[in-house]
């Protein structure tokens, strides 16, 4: 890579992306002031699909509005100067030998991706995050590559312990430094990890056909930016290839398929300007829209794309009822529908989750919920004093909450299964769930009850019960239940997620304490 301003900018933004990525983790402070969500907040695809789906405004996406305006003015510079996935492609493409471009991808393919996504958003199915380039990169990193890195380092560290025992301590400072700055705290392996990595690898592998194959033929964000960018004030001269040279075709990473520079494809990398053997190329501000081409793609594509979105949006809503009961969403999400309209499926909440409680939905939430975060209590619970997922959510699908508010937000409600729960099923003491319940007044309580033990002898055990009014569904009870079969207490989703009441310290407030 030559050191052009665009290249330097790309590397800076890639570095920034990676730094913010590793910082999207609890590192001893309750607040994360800079997280990788910044990249989604400047992402016009996220903005447009959010506006269409949620039909409301959030200040979180103001940077994306600014990006939209600057793209209108300057062109599709995001792709050539900022996009971390584009940068990775640029870094790798010289090592990938090219065959010929795929003809089937040319023409309107990109609109057939972008338009259905946008029109489906209008019909409340916001899937743009599935094909958003930053989300593709982030999911592959979060779900597979970063945990893999952590796992490798930790396995190595453990192996070292088996090998040299206590003497390993001498190396501990170095390991701790890496662990505290670079590695994930928990090397959780996520469902859909492989798929996420395969999608990223497919994008990279498609460089085999031509440079920036994904960016010029498929990427919905790039297509949107290109559509906005065709009105930019910059005009390249000459507009086409010169008869005596034609080097631009080789130099340009994204355009000149038709022998001319398409404004919607130009990523302003300035390779042609810097590489022109004759020094003829220049980018000049002009105020003519003549070359912008048609405002909209052909009517057939436009209507077809919109119709495809509608057709996608309706059947995608199907959900099996037995799955819905276990659809536990992150804290602060009160309405499933509103959540689905806003969630980018970027995976940040899952990355940052302190106890690795959040996992991407594969089939559980239906097509419309693919990759959305689900709390799986048996694997992790929502930490009472933690508010990180809301802080990193780029669109506010998970709201930012003060810790006092978050503690009262309802994720679900716990239910005992007396066929499993030890004091009921086996007549022995346990109450591990009560011990762990974080609600100061205890949403799980127990009463001493005289029962006939399994041996036929009368005895007293502590039988637990739930004070549903103050259960916030954090899931720690299900998480710590010592049963190896299934948990004796489980959290189920509820429709009414209004926050638990201001908890009263008075024992008399316990509706069950009368007896």
């Amino acid at each position, binding site marked *: 890579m030559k050191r052009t301003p665009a290249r330097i900018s790309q590397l800076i933004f890639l570095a920034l992306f990676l730094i913010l990525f590793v910082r999207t983790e*609890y590192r*001893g402070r309750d607040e994360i002031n800079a997280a990788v969500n910044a990249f989604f907040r400047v992402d016009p695809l996220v903005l447009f699909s959010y506006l269409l789906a949620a039909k409301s405004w959030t200040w979180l996406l103001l940077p994306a509005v600014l990006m939209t305006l600057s793209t209108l003015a300057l062109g599709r510079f995001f792709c050539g100067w900022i996009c971390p996935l584009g940068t990775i492609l640029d870094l790798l493409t010289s090592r990938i030998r090219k065959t010929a471009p795929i003809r089937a991808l040319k023409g309107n393919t990109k609109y057939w991706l972008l338009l259905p996504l946008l029109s489906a958003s209008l019909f409340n199915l916001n899937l743009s995050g599935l094909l958003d380039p930053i989300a593709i990169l982030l999911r592959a990193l979060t779900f597979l590559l970063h945990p893999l890195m952590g796992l490798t380092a930790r396995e190595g560290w*453990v192996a070292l*312990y*088996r090998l040299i025992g*206590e003497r390993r301590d001498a190396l*501990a400072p170095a390991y701790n430094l890496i662990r505290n700055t670079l590695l994930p*705290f928990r090397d959780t392996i996520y469902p859909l990890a492989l798929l996420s990595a395969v999608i990223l690898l497919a994008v990279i592998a498609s460089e085999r056909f031509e440079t920036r194959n994904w960016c010029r033929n498929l990427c919905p964000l790039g297509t949107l930016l290109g559509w906005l960018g065709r009105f930019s004030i910059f005009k390249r001269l000459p507009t086409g290839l010169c008869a005596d040279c034609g080097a631009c075709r080789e130099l340009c990473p994204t355009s000149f398929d038709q022998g001319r520079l398409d404004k919607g494809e130009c990523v302003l990398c300035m390779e042609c300007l810097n590489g022109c053997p004759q020094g003829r190329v220049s980018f000049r501000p002009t105020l003519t829209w003549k070359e912008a081409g048609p405002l909209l793609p052909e009517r057939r594509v436009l209507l077809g794309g919109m119709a495809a979105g509608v057709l996608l949006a309706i059947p995608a809503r199907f959900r099996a009822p037995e799955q819905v009961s276990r659809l536990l969403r992150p804290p602060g999400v009160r309405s499933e529908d509103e959540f689905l309209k806003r969630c980018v499926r970027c995976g940040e909440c899952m990355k940052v989750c*302190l*106890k690795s409680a959040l996992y991407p939905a594969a089939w559980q939430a239906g097509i419309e919920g693919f990759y959305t975060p689900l709390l799986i209590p048996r694997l992790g619970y929502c*930490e*009472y*004093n*933690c508010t990180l997922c809301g802080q990193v959510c780029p669109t506010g699908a998970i709201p930012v909450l003060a810790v006092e508010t978050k503690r009262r937000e309802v994720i679900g409600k716990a239910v005992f299964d007396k066929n499993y729960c*030890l004091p009921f099923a*086996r007549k*022995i*003491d*346990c*109450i*591990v769930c*009560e*011990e*762990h319940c*974080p*609600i*100061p*007044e*205890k949403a799980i309580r*127990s009463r001493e009850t005289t029962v006939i033990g399994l041996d036929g002898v009368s005895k007293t055990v*502590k039988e637990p019960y739930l004070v549903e009014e103050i259960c916030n569904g954090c899931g720690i009870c299900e998480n*710590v*239940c*010592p049963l*190896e079969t299934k948990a004796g207490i489980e959290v189920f989703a509820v429709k009414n997620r209004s926050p638990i009441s201001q908890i009263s*310290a008075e024992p008399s407030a316990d509706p069950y304490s009368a007896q």
Partner: protein
Amino acid sequence: MDRRTFLKASGAASLLAPTLIREALAAGEQPLVAVAEGTDYPAITRKAINALGGMKRFVKAGDVVVVKPNMGWDRSSELAANTHPQVVRAVVEECLAAGAKKVKVFDYTCNDSRRCYVNSGIEGALKGMKNVECKQIEPERFRKVTLNGRFLKEWELYDEALTANVYINVPVAKHHGLSKLTLGLKNIMGIMGGNRGYIHRSLDVALADVNAHFKSHLTIIDATRILTAHGPQGGNIADVKVLNKVIASVDVVAADAFATTLFGLKPADIPVTVAAHKRGLGEMDLGKIRVVKV
């Protein structure tokens, strides 16, 4: 506490200590429980230790010492779910002053370990101290140990505790939903790995099993403030009672037995204490315990 008061306190204590020990010995096998009271928590911690003969009695030069507080919950120190950071720090300082080569402080936490270490205030209180380690648990260090107990035949214990020369048990006194109170005998759970919830089905016997195999050399109970209800993690300041006391004893059962009285309970009310006493791990009869108030 400034250095002067520290010197005064330790000076006075070292003058007193020999007499106290002699008296204790004169009383035969009677275990000694030292109870220090005051609002200067480091000072009362030192007083309690010195009343037993000072840390030098337990820690020899070059020893590796484990100081095991409660820091299992993501709660701030005033909520009495974790041992008070000043008490922990004072114990650690005493160990270092007695010549300890290294002092290790850890707990196998119930909430996220990072948050517990930070919010308990203990990690912060020990920050920057030389030869002091406040590391989170590394699962590979648990080692299966044959206990041959009545309930637990074998269990995974933490090797840093097993290999240490001295193990100092520093629990906070608090309520517990199942065992009624959690004190020194129950604090041993912090060195236990595996499915700890499993032992709740016979908690008193299990804890006696572990304590019989693994002895605390010194137990220092933090009763500067105690959690009187909704234990073991509490969360409501209304459940916290400030007592400004630190209790120390070589006999973990005796220390627990005395601490029980702070809650208005009798040692016999606490099944764990009874089980440990029956197992011969210490004295729970308050009449046979010598309580020294300093």
